[in-house]
């Protein structure tokens, strides 16, 4: 096999890179006749640039980035596409010990639920404003990320405007703990195991999982460059097949210990297995069950709706029309058939947020998909959906 047959895949050292790392460690890529080289990257900007330059053929990618890069929202445009979700959930919201204590003093029940915590936070912010003190600063890992959109959703559900009432900044996950210790930030939303590292070092308190904000939100996808996918259809099919098999392996609890030990190795995540274990539990990572790997168009449409809500995109129409081209489930379905897995009906649901518990869609069992405020989403009526929110950056607000 010559060099050009090597598939270079990029990832960031996070627990949700597990399907890629384990497919390599378990030899599944090799078994499928694929020569894959995994490349640990330093930033999402790097992954985007390398996908664009063709140095990487594919990568673990934040699901909103699939849209932002196709739209060129950060000035760099590349025709990326995905037909595979690597995991659902996986992020936690952490606050500093000082902020946690302040919340508890104001309201002893503050930490009882994500509702009470955000309402207490709002009262604290009001107090600080009255005293002329600076607002709290929260960090996320990238502007076009579920971390950003879910943190915003939670804040706004509690009556806090994320752009007016707090400072939102972007900090790489590896810097979160240090910046929390320095007091530069008061909280952050990042992928595990970073939250558990902050908690274990005594600098942060794990307030909630983003699962509480949106049950089973799609988190990372396997994105590939469209040119590569077109020219290497067979390799692409095999690549996704391997990832699906790895995700099924990951879903077996009997494999958990082996998975953690493999991931802990220095050339994989290089983190103590215990942190990875806690991170997995705290982040409520779902790598396969309840249709987690299925690219659901309505999920992407919800992300588009949040981009519009916060002024990152002027309107939803063009972006929604793009979903079928960049986040289609056609290849995924082919692979499910080939692997003998149950498939949901052809017409994917347009609704999200209707289920507080797992539910049955045709032959397939799907996960709960409720939002923290119980508001329901329909991708066929985004404008009407967005009108329900008192807090947004929509024109005229």
């Amino acid at each position: 096999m010559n060099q050009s047959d090597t598939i270079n895949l990029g990832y960031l050292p996070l627990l949700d890179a597990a399907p890629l790392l384990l497919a390599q460690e378990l030899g599944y890529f090799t078994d499928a006749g694929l020569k894959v080289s995994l490349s640990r990257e330093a930033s999402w900007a790097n992954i985007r640039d390398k996908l664009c330059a063709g140095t990487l053929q594919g990568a673990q990618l934040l699901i909103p980035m699939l849209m932002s890069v196709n739209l060129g929202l950060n000035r760099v445009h590349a025709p990326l596409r995905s037909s595979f979700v690597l995991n659902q959930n996986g992020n936690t919201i952490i606050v500093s010990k000082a902020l946690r204590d302040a919340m508890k003093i104001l309201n002893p029940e503050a930490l009882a639920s994500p509702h009470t915590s955000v309402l207490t936070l709002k009262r604290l912010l009001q107090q600080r404003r009255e005293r002329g003190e600076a607002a709290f600063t929260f960090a996320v890992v990238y502007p076009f990320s579920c971390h950003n959109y879910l943190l915003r959703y939670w804040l706004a559900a509690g009556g806090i405007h994320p752009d007016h009432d707090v400072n939102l900044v972007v900090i790489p996950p590896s810097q979160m703990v240090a910046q929390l210790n320095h007091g530069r930030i008061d909280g952050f939303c990042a992928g595990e195991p970073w939250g558990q590292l902050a908690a274990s070092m005594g600098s942060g308190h794990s307030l909630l999982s983003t699962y509480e904000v949106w049950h089973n939100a799609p988190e990372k996808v396997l994105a590939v460059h469209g040119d590569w996918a077109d020219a290497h259809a067979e390799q692409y099919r095999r690549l996704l097949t391997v990832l699906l098999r790895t995700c099924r392996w990951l879903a077996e609890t009997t494999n958990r210990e082996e998975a953690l030990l493999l991931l802990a190795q220095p050339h994989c995540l290089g983190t103590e297995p215990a942190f990875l274990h806690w991170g997995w539990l705290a982040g409520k990572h779902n790598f396969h069950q309840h249709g987690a790997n299925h690219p659901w168009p309505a999920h992407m449409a919800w992300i588009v709706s949040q981009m519009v809500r916060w002024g990152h995109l002027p309107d939803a129409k063009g972006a929604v029309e793009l979903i079928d081209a960049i986040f289609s489930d056609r290849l995924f379905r082919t692979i499910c058939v080939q692997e003998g897995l149950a498939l949901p009906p052809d017409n994917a649901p347009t609704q999200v947020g209707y289920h507080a518990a797992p539910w049955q869609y045709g032959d397939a069992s799907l996960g709960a998909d409720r939002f923290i405020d119980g508001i329901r989403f329909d991708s066929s009526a985004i404008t009407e959906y967005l009108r329900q929110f008192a807090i947004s950056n929509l024109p005229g607000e």
Partner: protein
Amino acid sequence: MTLPNDSLRILLLDEQAERFPVMEAALTAAGYQVVGKVTTADNIQAAVERARPDVIIADLDSPGRDTLESMQALNRKQPRPIVMFTNDGDRDTIQLAVQSGVTAYVVDGMAPDRIKPILEVAMLRFQEYQKLRDELELTRLQLNERKHIDKAKGLLMKRKGLDEAKAYALLRRMAMDRHMKLAELARSIVAAAELLE
């Protein structure tokens, strides 16, 4: 060089702080003004707001790039760094950046042709520096290899009562039989010996 460059203020973002003096010297010599030097561990956003650069030269492998980009996307406050390759499908510039390991951000839509010469200086210095590092690394590796080979040779001489030339010949033959590099085999012999001690 003279006037047109004088006004241009440059901020450096680099994870290898030891590269700052090299870059600063080169850019200053070319007539630019280096107004700040940061690594990801610093408060990047505050540094940008304080230094008010026209251009930010960034190490491609700096995790802090995500912070820079967010200032363009999220922060309504000035200044707003924008990644340099602004034209859709400008794949060549990105390829060049990826190859050279350096990229640039312009603040508030400065004309791209004004930063081209800066980027050229930066890319050249980055590559020179990288080459130097690679050479140093190679020398270090070669020294290490030599050390292992000498040690393995010594072990064979002691255990098998061979002279130096014979021990070396045996080592070479073993490596060839096993399709291993000499240094690789030497390392495993040394490791095995340490294990059995």
